[in-house]
């Protein structure tokens, strides 16, 4: 090497595109080499992904810790299930209705809730979940109470002569994959936009953001509603996949699960949430070999998350991405 050489070695090839293509191929071809159980686990991960994206917008980007996702998840699940059972409507209608209704319900709930400070807000959102379950249990005329809704039909797409029903885990997997990709894309576009930058501004310093002219109140409310809508959409898929919806859907466990996915994957990053979703469900299923220890491990990983991985896996993902992209 001549003394004038500034580079130490030849520049690395940009492997990011290759990686992306490989990932896409793996996702599309997964059913060929994964069994039904593994596919099922991925479907569950993707069902939780949408509410997690919503929560990410709230926690990661706007800085509002919320435990209410389970409430909107439940509302979405019941909406979708009831429509399918009573009206036999095609899936995309149920799906959209679930999202819209959840988002709509978030409006009257969010207005008083968002005035509260951090800790009170958390308690308030918890209250939504508890009240949601109480309503599901006691409004028997609508929800059949504890008897629950069962026999929710498989997703049906009424496209005239091209109508089809999704049956079987593989078809369901593809459907959920498409929805998950679209949802992730939507979340990505939101955070990349000017609105997304404003949200980060609110998270970092709300007073400062307000002083620069960002209507923080409106932003928080809209993000709360969008987040609820995402949760509702996830609930809709859940209802059609499990075919059973009961007041048990409104449980704090789902809220904490989504929180772990977001905070574990890396709040404030899109790829983190996707990774977190898959990792969490994967870990959950892997620990099935020791059920008693499973919940203890879950608790310990929460503690590990809080103290050792406060940014979740995001830093690791970033490093990996950089590694692929350019010279070290």
């Amino acid at each position, binding site marked *: 090497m001549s003394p004038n050489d500034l580079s130490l070695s030849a520049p690395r090839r940009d492997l990011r595109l290759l990686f992306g293509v490989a990932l896409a191929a793996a996702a599309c071809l997964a059913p060929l080499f994964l069994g039904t159980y593994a596919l099922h686990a991925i479907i569950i991960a993707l069902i939780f992904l949408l509410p997690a994206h919503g929560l990410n917008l709230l926690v990661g980007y706007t800085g509002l810790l919320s435990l209410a996702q389970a409430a909107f998840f439940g509302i979405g699940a019941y909406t979708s299930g009831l429509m399918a059972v009573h009206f036999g409507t095609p899936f995309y209608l149920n799906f959209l209705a679930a999202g819209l209704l959840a988002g709509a319900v978030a409006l009257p709930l969010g207005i*008083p809730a968002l005035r509260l400070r951090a800790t009170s807000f958390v308690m308030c959102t918890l209250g939504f979940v508890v*009240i949601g379950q109480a309503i599901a249990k006691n409004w028997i005329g609508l929800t059949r109470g504890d008897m629950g809704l069962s026999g929710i039909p498989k997703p049906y797409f009424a496209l005239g002569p091209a109508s089809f029903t999704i049956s079987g885990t593989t078809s369901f997997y593809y459907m959920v994959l498409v929805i998950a990709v679209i949802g992730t894309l939507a979340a990505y576009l939101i955070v990349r936009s000017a609105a997304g930058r404003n949200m980060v501004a609110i998270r970092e310093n709300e007073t400062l953001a307000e002083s620069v002219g960002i209507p923080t109140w409106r932003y928080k409310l809209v993000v709360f509603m969008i987040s609820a809508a995402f949760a509702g959409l996830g609930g809709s898929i859940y209802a059609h996949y499990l075919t059973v919806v009961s007041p048990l859907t409104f449980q704090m466990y789902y809220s904490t699960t989504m929180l772990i996915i977001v905070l574990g994957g890396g709040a404030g990053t899109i790829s983190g949430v996707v990774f977190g979703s898959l990792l969490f469900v994967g870990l959950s299923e892997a620990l099935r070999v020791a059920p008693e*220890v499973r919940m203890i491990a879950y608790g310990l990983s929460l503690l590990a998350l809080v103290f050792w991985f406060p940014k979740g896996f995001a830093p690791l993902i970033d490093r990996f991405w950089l590694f692929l992209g350019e010279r070290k």
Partner: protein
Amino acid sequence: MLSAILEQIVNGIVSGSVYAIVAVGMTMIFGVLRAINFAHGEYYMLGTFGAWFAIEYFDLPYPVAIAIGVIATAVIAVVVGKFVMQRIVGAPPETGVLATLGIALVLQNTVILVFGGGYKFFSGGYIEPVSIFGFTLAEQRVLIIIVCILVFVGLELMVTYSRMGKAMRAVSQNIECCAVVGIDVPQVALRTFILGACLAALSGVLTAPVNVSVYGGMGEIITFKTLPVIIMGGLGNVRGTFFAAMILGIAESLVATYVGLQFRDTVGFATLLLVLMWRPHGLFSAQARF
């Protein structure tokens, strides 16, 4: 008619006393750590299990079992406090929420792992009914009410006059200044936490004779019940918590009687939501302070 309502109010005071002892611990912990202790109910459970264990395996009399239950919980609280709770001081709210949720899971499931998931019977305690002003109550319940009053009087005295109490008040007001004045904040945090956990355990041991069933998952319900109480009372407000607990107890009693038992829990969270909407700092504080 009047005596029926009076009886329900007495019932409300009885359950309110239980809530009060548990809630005051949680609210004090919040005051110092600024964290909602989602694992608080687990200390209630641990106290109960400790006492149950002492009676079941060592055949010890009930008063001794009370002490053992509380001491066992204190020991666990020291460990949890040193390794987890102290680190929450000064951290953002997410930290407290997640960390205490994690602790709750670990404690709950470790107990289930060790003792099995089945429910146990708590034998021991003073369950003979006595008649007071025409209302029959188990002796244990009278004991609970008396202990509740003693606890609150004691706390009031401690917070106002003792060094520890003053330090607690200082930490809950301004942590940075505490360091300046020479208060060992982590130590105060640890001690407050242990005190809170022990109070929860005490409540557990005292109610075990009348609640009979002991099982690993019993703490979760307690945590949920206590959250509305501390919000209503004002986070960190000891006196407010007492009144909030009583009000909630009585409200629940009346709803259970005149509306239906299935709506009892809704009272708690409906009240919580209402309070948060209209008086977020609690019913009894102009501003939430110790």
